[in-house]
């Protein structure tokens, strides 16, 4: 599903040039659950952003479903993204002014789903995430675990083939964290490919494979079980 070769990403500020990704090669198959680990600043988020088509690489190739997307322009990337990829963040990134229902509904609005179908699908996914009773609440009125469940609901409502999660449990206590990991595992079992950045060896154990990064480079890959 994903194949990156010699992927490079630099950040230039006035004085320094940071090499965030250094000739990185990774391949991920459909249905996999991959964890990415590594020290802070090693380029995990950068990698995830490029995989998620939020950012473009400075060099190398990125095949997404056998299509070369490294040189895609913003509009094409956005198009591919909204139909195929869901995101989960450490800080949830829910919109404060919108209710739970409205937050989850957003991706469907942007892909042009009709209002009646939106209602059905949002309610379906909210029920599945056991957050239906909070549908009219605002994000600030929810606990961290509940907010992350809403964020996951929002990520999957469009039935994406790939979910990218950047430290999804980073802001949660362990019981809430475990709940989130169960949810991701369920999704994976239903066929969704999941790539997750994490600092927690515990969480990484839910995955099939761990990719360890150091200075923008793959160090080692562990296959679980």
């Amino acid at each position, binding site marked *: 599903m994903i194949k990156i070769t010699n992927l490079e990403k630099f950040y230039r500020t006035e004085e320094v040039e940071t090499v965030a990704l250094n000739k990185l090669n990774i391949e991920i198959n459909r249905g996999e659950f991959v964890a990415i680990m590594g020290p802070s600043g090693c380029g995990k988020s950068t990698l995830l952003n490029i995989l998620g088509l*939020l950012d473009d690489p400075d060099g190398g190739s990125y095949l997404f479903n056998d299509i070369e997307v490294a040189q895609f322009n913003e*509009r094409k990337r*956005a198009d591919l993204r*909204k139909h195929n990829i869901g*995101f989960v963040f450490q800080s949830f990134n829910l919109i*404060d*002014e919108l209710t739970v229902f409205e937050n989850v509904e*957003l*991706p469907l609005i942007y892909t042009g789903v009709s209002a009646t179908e939106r209602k059905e699908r949002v309610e379906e996914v909210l029920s599945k995430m056991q957050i239906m009773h909070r549908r009219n609440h605002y994000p600030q009125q929810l606990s961290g675990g509940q907010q992350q469940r809403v964020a996951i609901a929002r990520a999957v409502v469009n039935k994406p083939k790939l979910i990218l999660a950047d430290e999804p449990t980073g802001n949660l206590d362990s019981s809430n964290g475990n709940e989130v990991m169960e949810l991701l595992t369920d999704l994976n079992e239903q066929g969704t490919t999941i790539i997750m950045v994490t600092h927690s060896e515990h969480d990484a154990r839910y995955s099939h494979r761990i990719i360890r990064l150091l200075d923008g480079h793959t160090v080692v890959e562990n296959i679980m079980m």
Partner: protein
Amino acid sequence: MFKNHLKIAFRSLWRNRAFSAINMFGLILGFTVFIFIAEYVAYEWNANRFHQNFNQLSRLSFLYKTGESNYYLPPGLGPTLKSNVPGIKQVVRIGENVGSGVLSINTGASKNVFREERVSFVDGQFLKVFTFPVLQGNGLLNEPQTMALSKTTAIKYFGNVNAVGKVIQVNNQFGNTDYTVTSVYQDMPQNSDIQADVLLSYKTLESAALRNGNDWADPTGLGSEYSYLYILTNENANLSQISAQATNLWHKLKPDSKNDHVGLQPFQNLHIAPGFSYQFQTYGSLLLLIAFLSVAMLIIVIAWVNYINLSTAQALNRAREVGVRKVLGASRGQLTLQYLTETFVLTTISLGVAMLMVLMLQAAYNSFLEKQLSLAVLNAGWFWLGGATLIISGTLLAGGYVSWVLSSFNPLKTIRSKAFLKVGGLSLRRGLVVFQFVTSIIFIIATIVLYEQLQYMQNQDLGMKVEQRLAVTGPSIINSSQRDNSIAFENEVRQLPFVKQLSASNNIPGQGYNFSTAGITKSNANPGDDKKSYAMLIVDDQFFKTYDINIKYGTGFTLPMLAHGWTKTKKVVLNEAAVRQLGYNDNNAIIGQKIKWNNDFEIVGVVKDYHHLGLHEQIKPMIFLPAVADGFFTLKMETANMSTKMEQIRSLYQKNFPGEPFSYSFLDEVYDKQYKTEYQLGKIFIAAAFTAVLIACMGLLGLAMFAARRRIKEIGIRKILGANVFSLVNLISADFLKLVVVALVVASPIAWYIMHRWLEGFAYRITMQWWMFASAGLMALFIAFATVSIQAIKAAVSNPVKSLRSE
């Protein structure tokens, strides 16, 4: 301490350059407009105030039962008043411009000739009662054949102000008379309503010989009403009592005037009326003054609103700074002082720049107003003080509010919380933006309505033609051969190939009538008919043809009717309004009927109504009288190659009226001049609308910048979820466009009411249309959208990864 505040103030203004610049721009604009308008208001307010007797002076007027007033009085009433009514110290009569003509001095070898328009007959004490400082001479004009010259006139004639004792020959309607200069006075200031370059003693006209047959001008006469009467009263005189006594006296002198009232108009109210329903006529326009004042107040309030708006919006960026300062021990008072210092610095710079702008743009502003204004006019009365107080208090209020908002942040929240910080007063800021746009939209609507009305007045069918009509002013020297000269001139001008028509009349459209009179009735009149007034115009046989005025019944005048003048011929032409007012049926049978006006006058024709004067007033009942006229010669001609044609006309004029200056005007221009107030209002409103919209947009821009920054996280999330740029721009802009729509809804009825009242001042007017409001709204929407969308687009195309990272 203050120095420290000042240093930090400069630094933080510099750090937030963009915001500071936008903020200052609004203030500079507001202050500049405010100062300009203050100049105008001060100038108008100070009109006539330089007279030392300002508070003891009044002008007399007749007040009629109809509600009309007339400040032309018979000069004979003056001396009688002084001797019969207690409380009156002096009566000064002014026969304004009655003496205009040609003045000449013999300098031995040559004769210097000047045409003077502003030549008035005045009573001997004129220069004592009014404060026009006397530079040379005794300032008295008690003797016959004495005169006084303004400084400029004296220098024009003699090269210096030493003119006392010199003799000048004045050739005007009263013939050729020598006058001796007794005094030279300082030029009358531009904001004096009394204006004269040459003063002639009224006493001169007491001699029948020096009136040259114009007995109407007899200073002791009670018949013709042509003179201003000013009275100087005692300190604590009771004006209403004097007015009552003057009225009694007038009724005794003129038993048939029982319905007229003699009113006193205090000099204070001579220039600007104290209210819109003031019955006396004034020189200045209260409407213009009020329009100016409201614009000034609104613009400066908008500028402050803008300041509040931008500064509180910006406060979000400074929340962390405030938090840190507080944690480090700053008290709320100290913080307030710090931010007030910033306001002070910002305002001072803006005020300074505004002053520079005023100095730079003064000349343009003056030529637009046709007034000599400068910062110096503010140097009178309470204008400096008032203006300064207003600016300082407004600044304190605006600055104080901003400081209060800033210093009220909770330090812990602002430092710790990464989450979106709610800055108080978001709805207040929206309210302020709505207010700004309400004002802007009102100005835009006012401008549209005003120009539609002007357009309407210009395109209205006048019932006659003014284009391609040239009016040449007739001769002012009256002598025995004048009539022959006029006829000769007319005949020669008619020979010119490019002249299609020529008419001589004693007044012209757009300028006025010859006189108005009552006492005209049909033979079997109804009671009260004799009180109705008619506008009289003396014209020749070509007048209707030259102006393309349609004859409805009968004929116009014929050449033989002119020969003996209207007093002997006793024939008249009426307009339709006169036919109605006289009570005739509107049909052909009217021809040959006789109207009574002391004698019988035969109706030889009826013309269709036409707008002799502007569209402000209803068409008056008019009666035309035939005569060989020479007040104005109207030429209908092609206007191509005007300068060569003009030369030909000029040489004929100078040949037939030697020594007379040649002056002319184009009728369409004369006609347009009547709408001068409307043109000026129009320009004021365009300028006001422009300024208000500009400042309002500054506010909107600031708010949009703020909103884009505040919602950067939301925009990022939405983008990641698949939102496109278009929907994001919509998201941000829609909020603001809603505000503009609200503003339109609020502004429309207000604008409708104001402009409705304004339109009522026109007898012929447009009705306001929905599209005027719609286009004002669209314009505001468009400008607002252009302002906001730039910010919105910037936010929408930014990389979402970055905005979420920096969060």
